[in-house]
């Protein structure tokens, strides 16, 4: 039961491969929530947002720009996945792997 420590910056931007070894994108975001276990309230990562075009993620919340982004990204094949934490294998944090195949992964909106 050894705990390892990894820096957030070392995970962001890492290329993620699926169970078949295919590249499915890069880690763009880690989404955390409070988990009330063992009397303490800890923030734990619940989902990894993995996508192909990191810069587009930055401008994803304005309304007009969001629509523009959606239209552009659909045309260019941008895909974003929300991967639950237990599907992500971070045994080697430099080379994250998902324990499923790409077509089984939940897409983001």
């Amino acid at each position, binding site marked *: 039961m050894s705990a390892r*420590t*990894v*820096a957030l910056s070392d995970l962001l931007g890492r290329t993620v491969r699926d169970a078949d070894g295919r590249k499915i994108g890069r880690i763009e975001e*880690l989404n*955390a929530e409070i988990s009330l276990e063992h009397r303490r309230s*800890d923030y734990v990562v619940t989902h990894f947002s993995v996508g192909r075009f990191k810069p587009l993620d930055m401008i994803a919340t304005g309304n007009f720009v969001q629509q523009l982004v959606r239209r552009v990204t659909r045309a260019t094949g941008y895909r974003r996945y929300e991967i639950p934490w237990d599907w992500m294998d971070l045994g080697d944090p430099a080379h994250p792997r998902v324990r499923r195949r790409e077509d089984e992964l939940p897409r983001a909106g």
Partner: protein
Amino acid sequence: MGTVHLSRNVIDTQLVDRHQQKIGRIDELLLELEEGKPPRVATIVISGAARARRVGGWMVACHRAVHALLGQRAEHESRVPFDAVRCIADTIELDVEGNTLESLRLERWLSEHVIGRIPGASGERK
């Protein structure tokens, strides 16, 4: 509901202490990985070395060189457990005493030995 985006809303965000004083920005977050458990957001790091590391190896080398030049061996960095976080908003409030933070050593030193020596540096509000 309560989902916090670590890259967008946590790292690089302004930190304030329990007195609402600015104490730096989150330069790095350390996550604890344990088999069978979700990664835990464990530690906030306030550190020039951590910043340099995010830029690249060459920056780390420059950083070390500058510190060697200034005669410092130890990096003034602070590691604060993430459970000191009281509030995540435009700023992130930590339940710590700013004056005790290692990362603010330069601020205290300058205040005492350089700025403080010049007349008019302290006292009543401007």
